[in-house]
């Protein structure tokens, strides 16, 4: 039983969220899965770490000092390395429910969704209106604009993809969003918060793209429906941090027979012609064996994150990110214990939005009285990255501690994996939610398993045995 099988249907490398969801789904589908991570913890880049680890990861301290000691018990901290939230009506939520992984996790609402208008001292921060009646009360718009926005949101709310009568005479498959905005007569500032804080586009490229109007409408609907589900914001968040998500899916995989090996290096990947044939690996020192345990096993399919395949991926951009510890709520967020604040690019003269995700002790990620705010954006220059994030820092008030490393490369695979049967995930991108992650999950599943992933009814009958 303590043995590694001579062959697995799928070997998964890395325990980030994408890999763990795929591992879980594959196991439920009856595939024999071996899941490996070189680190001694789950989550890879999507892990949540304690405050001591965070100081050490970023090297923010002088040798010999222990600055984390003033922040209470280190293990009361679960600080996300990747700033993301779940859309409560989004695909990740759907997968969590369909697989019953919700059994292991508790979720809370994020208390508010905010957007910035204007810049510098004249910047205002206001709640993102999520329906027609909120639009009428929003300080983001003047009187007449409110009415136009109300009309627009009513139309989006009634839109049904398969009912052309709801298209309002607009050929959404052909036209650009600009034409839709023009039809409703919406002003540039309104377009800005709709496109960036509701449709959650990170740049303005969507506006002129022909045929992108329907996707935009659907994104706004996702926002509005997510908002409607629990009321305060469209976002939810797992207690103890995002690092719980990969662990939950790993458990799902294990329950269906998946084998887990952390702390294990991949020494070699072997091929049969062009296709992958197996791996050689070493589980690093276990107590009884100082050299670690070397093993090999066959497989015809590997799924992994980019860090395992430096030669098969390329960099598509750089993420800038700063983790900030605060002792107060973020100003102008109604003292919320948590929030998402989006600074649309055009408001601060950028091409990419700046995101701020705020969580606190209400989510069991830090001791009482603390708040964790992560400011992030896509790098536009090659130096002075802290200046690119500055408009975000300006929103935070006094910052106790700021952790910011070099720009983080974002990777994508060079090939689809159809040739070598090595399917590589994308890095977590700069979006504020997991919708692109689940797109990647579906995409990899389609390529690796040769069929669409259907999550509804995935949970096995015997998954939860009752008394």
């Amino acid at each position, binding site marked *: 039983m303590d043995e590694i099988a001579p062959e697995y249907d799928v070997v998964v490398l890395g325990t980030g969220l994408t890999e763990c969801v795929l591992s879980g789904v594959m196991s439920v589908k009856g595939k024999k899965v071996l899941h490996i991570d070189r680190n001694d913890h789950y989550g890879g880049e999507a892990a949540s770490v304690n405050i001591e680890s965070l100081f050490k990861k970023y090297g923010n301290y002088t040798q010999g000092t222990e600055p984390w000691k003033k922040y209470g018990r280190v293990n009361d901290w679960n600080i996300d390395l990747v700033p993301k939230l779940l859309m409560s009506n989004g695909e990740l939520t759907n997968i969590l429910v369909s697989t019953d992984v919700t059994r292991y996790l508790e979720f809370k609402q994020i208390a508010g969704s905010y957007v910035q208008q204007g810049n510098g001292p004249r910047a205002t921060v206001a709640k993102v209106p999520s329906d027609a009646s909120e639009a009428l009360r929003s300080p983001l718009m003047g009187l007449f604009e409110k009415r136009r926005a109300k009309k627009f949101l009513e139309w989006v709310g009634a839109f049904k993809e398969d009912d052309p009568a709801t298209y309002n005479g607009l050929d959404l498959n052909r036209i650009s969003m600009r034409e839709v905005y023009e039809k409703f007569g919406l002003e540039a500032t309104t377009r800005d918060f709709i496109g960036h804080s509701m449709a959650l586009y990170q740049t303005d490229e969507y506006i002129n793209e022909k045929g992108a109007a329907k996707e935009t409408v659907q994104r706004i609907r996702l926002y509005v429906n997510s908002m409607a589900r629990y009321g305060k914001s469209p976002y939810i968040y797992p207690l103890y941090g995002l690092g719980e998500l990969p662990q939950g899916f790993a458990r799902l995989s294990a329950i269906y027979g998946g084998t887990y090996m952390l702390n294990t290096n991949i020494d070699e990947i072997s091929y049969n012609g062009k296709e992958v044939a197996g791996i050689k690996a070493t589980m690093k020192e276990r107590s009884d064996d100082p050299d670690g345990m070397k093993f090999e096993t066959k497989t015809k399919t590997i799924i992994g994150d980019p860090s395992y395949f430096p030669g098969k991926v390329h960099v598509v951009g750089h993420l800038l990110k700063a983790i900030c510890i605060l002792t107060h709520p973020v100003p102008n967020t109604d003292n919320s214990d948590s929030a998402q604040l989006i600074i649309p690019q055009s408001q601060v003269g950028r091409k990419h939005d700046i995101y701020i995700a705020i969580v606190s002790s209400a989510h069991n990620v830090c001791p009482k009285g603390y708040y964790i705010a992560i400011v992030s954006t896509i790098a536009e220059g090659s130096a002075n990255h802290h200046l690119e994030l500055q408009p975000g820092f300006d929103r935070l008030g006094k910052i106790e501690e700021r952790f910011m490393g070099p720009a983080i490369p974002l990777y994508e695979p060079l090939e689809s994996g159809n040739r070598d049967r090595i399917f590589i995930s994308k890095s977590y991108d700069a979006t504020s939610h997991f919708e692109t992650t689940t797109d990647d999950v579906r995409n990899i599943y389609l390529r690796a398993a040769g069929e669409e992933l259907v999550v509804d009814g995935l949970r096995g009958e015997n*998954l939860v045995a009752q008394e």
Partner: protein
Amino acid sequence: MVDSGNASAPKPSSSVKLVLLGEAAVGKSSLVLRFVNNAFQENKEPTIGAAFLTQKTALPTRTIKFEIWDTAGQERFASLAPMYYRNAQSALVVYDLTKPTSLIKAKHWVAELQRQASPGIVIALVGNKLDLTKGAGGEAAALPAEEEGVEGEGEGEGDGDARKITTQEGRSYAEEEGLLFFETSAKSGVNVQEVFTAIANAIPETQMKTSRQGAGGGAGGGTQAALGSDRVNLTGGKGEAKEGCAC
């Protein structure tokens, strides 16, 4: 069997997360199967397929609903996730009385729990497969240390004593570490119910209310009120925490 229907005046009921730990094949799943279904399978397969099982235990003043988590094999290569221990109020660390390495493994797990789990966790150390040892018919075997003594040399097949770990050895380790201690047989059922009842009794009433959401890990007392609000139940649209109807 435990849950006799006193329908008129239900006693306060609370959930307790219990995690299982121990070497492969010591009988973790079998103990749970005995506790939950009062059944035993001679050749139980390595565990797959259950997220967790639940079973109620009635105490004089309250009812405890155990939510029992199996490792799902993630412990085999030392790859258990912290989520497994998170908010566990109790743990069953199992070894096999006929297998000396399994006690060493059990000690390792106790240390791991003391390092990782919530400080107040109730740990029971359980030596299982008592039916394979001498003088272990169905009588209350475990507690008194009297019938220890003879080390089961050899295979012990002749007189049916395969015991390799004395009662005293298990007990004194348990006492050192402040653990509950039992010797059980999932096969005959001896002491199985007793283990769970003892755990239920050892969990302070104050720990209960919070059940798995509030307890442990976090920042103690103050969090509970904060946790009450805004929690979402994903499986049913709007609503309260899912423990709301613990029926």
